[in-house]
């Protein structure tokens, strides 16, 4: 209670310094937020493309409907499989015409084979799984051919791995820079109160008593900075979304993680700054 009051009074007595601290934290996290927004959107785009990964098994002409239905029931319970669709010859023709647009008249009736379109579960759309499913489907006698665009799936998977690795590396670098800047900002507020800390120690305050208001201060500044950073990132998102191209924003869970990270960074920055200051007095 006393620590909270001390933290509040310290901010009240030096409002400019407190504001500076919050704004610095906000801009550090904003830079990180912008990067995270780019990473989230790349991930989102890749996920959309991934959803199109499917195994297409072409069915021999004249295969009895009950054999196809039995195979579909069989394939649907593969652990990797999310959904199996039967596309008849007519359906295939319609889809081809739709996809080809102005060249739709190149297709004549009944020219395309019927197929089973097998969609895989999210997270299992990697080259190995796709190939394994394709091999199993090939074993049905009525299946003439199986296509799944192995080269394309392999490239997509590589791109996803590179994006995840780069994202993690850059994310850590951004986070490290943010922590350093925030640590320096909190250090300034500790130094501004060095005289007060020295007097506290002289009248018998324990280290934990001295530390407590700074930890509360760092925690609150971290959260406020994070809220401001989320707001700034949202403004940036709206600008891009309305003026340039469609993008997605963080989901609420990610925003909550951001606020917790802000509070944690504020707390950590305060703890290390006060700890190193107290060690010297």
């Amino acid at each position, binding site marked *: 209670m006393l620590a909270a009051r001390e933290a509040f009074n310290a901010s009240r007595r030096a409002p400019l310094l407190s504001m500076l601290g919050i704004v610095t934290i906000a801009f550090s996290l904003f830079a990180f937020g912008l990067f995270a927004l780019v990473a989230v959107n790349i991930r989102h785009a890749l996920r959309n493309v991934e959803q199109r990964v499917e195994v297409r098994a072409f069915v021999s002409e004249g295969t009895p409907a009950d054999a196809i239905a039995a195979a579909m029931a069989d394939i649907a319970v593969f652990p990797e499989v999310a959904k199996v669709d039967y596309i008849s010859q007519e359906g295939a023709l319609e889809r081809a015409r739709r996809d080809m647009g102005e060249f739709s008249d190149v297709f004549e009736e009944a020219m395309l084979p019927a197929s089973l379109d097998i969609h895989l579960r999210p997270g299992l759309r990697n080259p190995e799984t796709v190939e394994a499913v394709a091999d199993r489907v090939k074993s049905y006698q009525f299946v003439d051919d199986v296509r799944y665009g192995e080269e394309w799936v392999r490239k997509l998977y590589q791109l996803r791995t590179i994006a995840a690795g780069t994202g993690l590396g850059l994310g850590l670098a951004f986070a490290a820079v943010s922590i350093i800047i925030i640590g320096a900002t909190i250090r300034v507020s500790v130094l501004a109160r060095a005289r007060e800390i020295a007097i506290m120690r002289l009248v*018998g305050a*324990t280290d934990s008593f001295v530390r407590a208001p700074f930890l509360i201060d760092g925690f609150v500044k971290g959260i406020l900075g994070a809220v401001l950073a989320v707001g700034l990132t949202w403004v940036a998102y709206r600008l891009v979304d309305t003026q340039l191209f469609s993008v997605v924003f963080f989901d609420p869970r990610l925003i909550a993680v951001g606020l917790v990270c802000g509070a944690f960074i504020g707390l950590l920055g305060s703890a290390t700054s006060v700890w190193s200051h107290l060690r010297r007095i």
Partner: protein
Amino acid sequence: MIRLHDVAKEYTRTRVALSHVTLQIRRGEFVFLIGPSGSGKTTILKLLYMEEKPTHGDVWVSGVHATTAKRKEISQLRRRLGIVFQDFRLLEDRTAEENVAFALEVTGAPSSAIPQRVARVLTQVGLASKATHLPRQLSGGEQQRVAIARALVNDPYFLLADEPTGNLDDRASRGVIQLLRDINAAGTSVIMATHDLEIVRRADNARTIELNHGRVVFDSAETPPPETRYTPLLGQPVIGGPSEGNWPPLPGDSR
């Protein structure tokens, strides 16, 4: 009880602040630490409130051993020591009563008891009517009284004062000294470092310890009788008051 045994303090190899200092101070004593600037007075006080640790020897204050004390023990000890400085060291943005209350709050004193105890010590130092004044609204003497009130509010065993009259005019100095004498009469030991030999001359029944080059060169407790109690400094005329340049040379001092 305060006990220093064969204490040395070296800040660097060439900067020796104290050497071979051995002394004891009992509860209830009023002790002046005198000596020229750099003689080690402030270092002794810093060793007593354990801002510094001795390079050699032992310092014991109320059962706490300076060399081995943990930071928490030092905090607990300081709650039983009142410390007063030449520059007052008040928090400029807090009123007199808030400055005094601060010393109670950090010790975890119950908040219901704080106003009463603060009022009591502010009355004791004669500042009850200025309790809500900020330090800048008070004279130097009054600020020092607030600092003394802060030092007293935890009922200390020892009050350590480092040049408490150094920034005050003669009248304010006499008031502060009288206050310290009253505090001592009520049972608190007072250990005061000072340049002001006039204050020492005027004081009766006070013990005087003189330091030079980090060594104790005179201790009135070991050199009775009081009538012939001349320190090397007090035994010689001091020209023009207690300023830095007026310290007469000591016997054997080649400066």
